[in-house]
């Protein structure tokens, strides 16, 4: 009989480690051309808003006394306003604010949703009932109106209050989803294992439950960016949102919408078109992320073979 080989020490079989998981997601994402296009446009718009001003000779608060209400030209690419401000500089400045509001608001809203939803789902009992009641309450409140009514209160103060308010009316649906995901996840054995080890509850939530929903949270935050930008624009348009001297795409559109029908329509169209392009691209990125992170929900081809 041949000599026996020494016992084989078990070694990992599959090679889907975490970095290759990342690569897999990247590959899935890169496969979606629209998502790539969206991502490129979003990045370009960021560069436009934040880097653009450094390479442009007009500043947003600089008045050109020789050019009031001028159409786009070589000196003022997007033309000027009746007060002699440069439209391109204003648009870049406004885009900055809209982007940052969208981003902070989205992260904030998803964050609130995550904490509230996970708390409700994990602890059940009265905490759950209280949070669910709060969600139901805020859902029936007209958010737009309330922010509008409150807007005098943050007049002249930082626009951050406005962002917080926007987020406060945005998180509820997500929180509900997270709550039900938590309900099922807390029955998972690795959560039991942690509990029986003596890991404190809040650590379980932040170490085991929320990280396992990260795909969902990332997708949700991305989609929130576009809806928050739209909400900001809507409110600012009516003068309830971003307040002067701050400028956002919303205030720009609000200040110039009347010119849309006139020969000076450029004042309206530049910010408006950029807004549409921005929201559309963010949504494309969101869709692409969903397909990449959560292929079962999307259209990506089925995984592997069902060999059993």
């Amino acid at each position: 009989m041949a000599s026996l080989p020494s016992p084989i020490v078990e070694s990992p079989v599959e090679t889907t480690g975490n970095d290759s998981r990342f690569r897999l997601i990247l590959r899935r994402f890169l496969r979606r051309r629209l998502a790539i296009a969206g991502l490129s446009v979003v990045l370009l718009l960021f560069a436009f808003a934040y880097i653009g001003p450094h390479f442009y000779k007009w500043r947003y608060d600089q008045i050109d006394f020789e050019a009031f209400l001028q159409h786009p030209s070589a000196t003022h690419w997007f033309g000027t306003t009746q007060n002699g401000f440069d439209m391109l500089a204003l648009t870049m400045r406004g885009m900055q604010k809209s982007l940052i509001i969208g981003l902070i608001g989205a992260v904030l809203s998803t964050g609130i949703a995550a904490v509230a939803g996970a708390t409700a789902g994990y602890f059940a009992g009265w905490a759950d009932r209280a949070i669910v009641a709060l969600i139901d309450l805020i859902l029936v409140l007209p958010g737009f109106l309330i922010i509008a009514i409150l807007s005098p209160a943050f007049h002249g103060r930082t626009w951050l209050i406005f962002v917080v308010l926007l987020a406060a009316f945005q998180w509820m649906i997500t929180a509900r989803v997270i709550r039900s995901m938590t309900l099922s996840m807390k029955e998972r054995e690795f959560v039991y294992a942690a509990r029986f080890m003596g890991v404190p509850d809040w650590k379980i939530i932040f170490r085991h439950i929320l990280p396992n929903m990260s795909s969902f949270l990332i997708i949700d935050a991305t989609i929130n960016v576009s809806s928050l930008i739209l909400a900001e624009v809507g409110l600012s348009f009516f003068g309830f949102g971003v307040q002067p001297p701050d400028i956002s795409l919303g205030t720009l559109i609000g200040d110039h919408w009347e010119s849309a029908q006139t020969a000076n329509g450029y004042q309206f169209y530049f910010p408006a078109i950029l807004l549409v392009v921005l929201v559309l691209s963010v949504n494309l990125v969101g869709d692409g992320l969903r397909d990449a992170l959560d292929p079962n929900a999307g259209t990506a081809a089925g995984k592997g073979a069902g060999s059993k």
Partner: protein
Amino acid sequence: MTQSRPLLEVKSLSVTFPSEAGPVEAVRGLSYHVMPGEVMGIAGESGSGKSVSSLAVMGLLPRRARIAGSVRFEGEELLGRGDKDLSAIRGGKIAMIFQDPLSALTPVYTVGDQIAEAVQVHQTVSKQAAMDRAVELLNLAGIPNPRERARAFPHEFSGGMRQRAMIAMAIANNPKLIIADEPTTALDVTIQAQILDLLLKAKEATGAAIVMITHDLGVMAGFADRLTIMYAGKPLEAGAVDDLYYRPRMPYTIGLLGSIPRIDAAPGTPLTPIEGSPPSLTNLPPGCPFTPRCPMRVDLCRKVEPDLVRMNGSGEEHFAACHRSAEIEQKNLTGLDIFPAPADRTRDFSRVSDVPVLRITGLKKHYPMVRGAILHRRIGTIQAVDGIDLEIREGETLGLVGESGCGKTTTIMEILSLARPSSGAIEVLDRKTAGMTAQDRFQIRREISVVFQDPMASIDPRMPISDILAEPMLTHGVPADERARRIGELLKMVGLRPEHTSRYPQEFSGGQRQRICIARALALKPKLLVLDEPVSALDVSIRAGVLNLLEELKAELGLSYLFVAHDLSVVRHISDRVAVMYLGRIVETGEVNCVFNHPAHPYTQALLSAAPLPDPRKERARRRIILKGDLPSPANPPSGCRFRTRCQKFADELNDQQRQKCIDVDPVLCEHGNAGSDHRAACHYAEGGKLN
């Protein structure tokens, strides 16, 4: 042998799926034939291609699968036929039974309608006649009150009942061939016995041949006439069951048989584990697929894939695919010759001390049954656990056995949550949980840890191994350098490489993950490990390794185990004492040999007789007690003895007067057999009948 033509003839069947990682070769060159009226078994672990091959036969594979070879049914080629053609055969001449009947039954139609529809598709009969036939079939399938039950929806049926309904549907058109794909895997032992019994009856009633697909060599032994063992998409050995079980001629089959704990073997009989895990089906290397795990491999194995060749010594239809099977045959090698025998682990009972690590007295757990989302109305009480006593001493393994719904999960959840029980007491290391402060409870968690059934679900997939193993120590304030040292130590202890700490759980196979779970459970050097079905989610060939590891660890570290399982043979293999649970009560308990050799309670007797044995001759000769019906609802347990609705003794042996006692008086656990032994049973008419 009769000279008739084979009913089904599969020749060099191969199935390939495209995937992101390259083509998955799920089946590679499978050939078999089925004669009319015989039972042909296909056995293999998950990923062996056994299910895929039968789906290919039925034409049920997704379109992206590439299928080659030939499948002839009654001489006619099935492969490449249109779906329409095949539908005429499917459900007519060939019927299929799946593992999960719920997915095979449409939830929105009643069971009766679905069977009637199956009848009407293949026979021209009136609606009423079809319905009558459906009721008749349900009756044949052993469903009580068939006329009434025919109007029920699938979700109103229990798992066993659904499988009965599936069988009723399968035999509706007198098929020539029934393909049963893991028909009993999701079911409890006693229900499994019912279903296997029913399948044999159905076979007799229709004269159909059966292709039986299962991973369970115990079930196969008593059921199949001939058997093909598959591994990594290939048949490795084929032949009559007796040849395969008594004269296996290739290392995988030999290893598989040696790695199954047997219910008729004394505790501690060594199992020969097969190292490693099955290969991935993409980019299979050339040569024998078993090479990396085979203790007999030679250079040739790596280069040339062996073909199935006829064995001369045994039956005329015995084939094996191994370069060295002639040698195995000649020298009549067995598992103990081929596989490195695990260290001798004769039981050392002297290690069992009298100090109890866990004591449970009169534990009850009742859940309110509520209805209504807003106004919670209490409509009853589920008596999940109803007064049980357990004791585990230091160094002892207590096996807790029972079928699903018996309350064993509730029991361990109660123990592990260390909460104040609603009734009764739980004492861990002599300290009652009821009086504990949060701080005490936290401290005591060091002493008791848990390993769950599903290793895929019980570790956080987002953490690298080092974090997973560090978590308990981090929680209990073990300093960082000590943690790092211990992690390496733990990995070595469970047979994994210490270098693997930065890897993620997805990179490990099921067996390896279970080892990680065990390592995590040992991190804080606990006294008691609660093992909740720790091997039942693992493949057969992997189980033995994990069981051996558990035994080694126990001997080395002086651990105590609470081993919860539904598989009696595993429990027998590993336990010192055993407690059998039924409907929230312990019905029999005692030293494992006493209970298994002389079961006193009728339920234990039935359980033991239903547990399949990987031994065809014994299996055929056995008298099997088939319990009637399903587990009653724990919300409304029967009066008197809880087992009486299914008790074979109550039904067959007792007279009316004796029966009345079972109905009126709740039996208590009382000593049985030799005085002084702790063998106790809760039955008025307990006896020491010897089984098998």
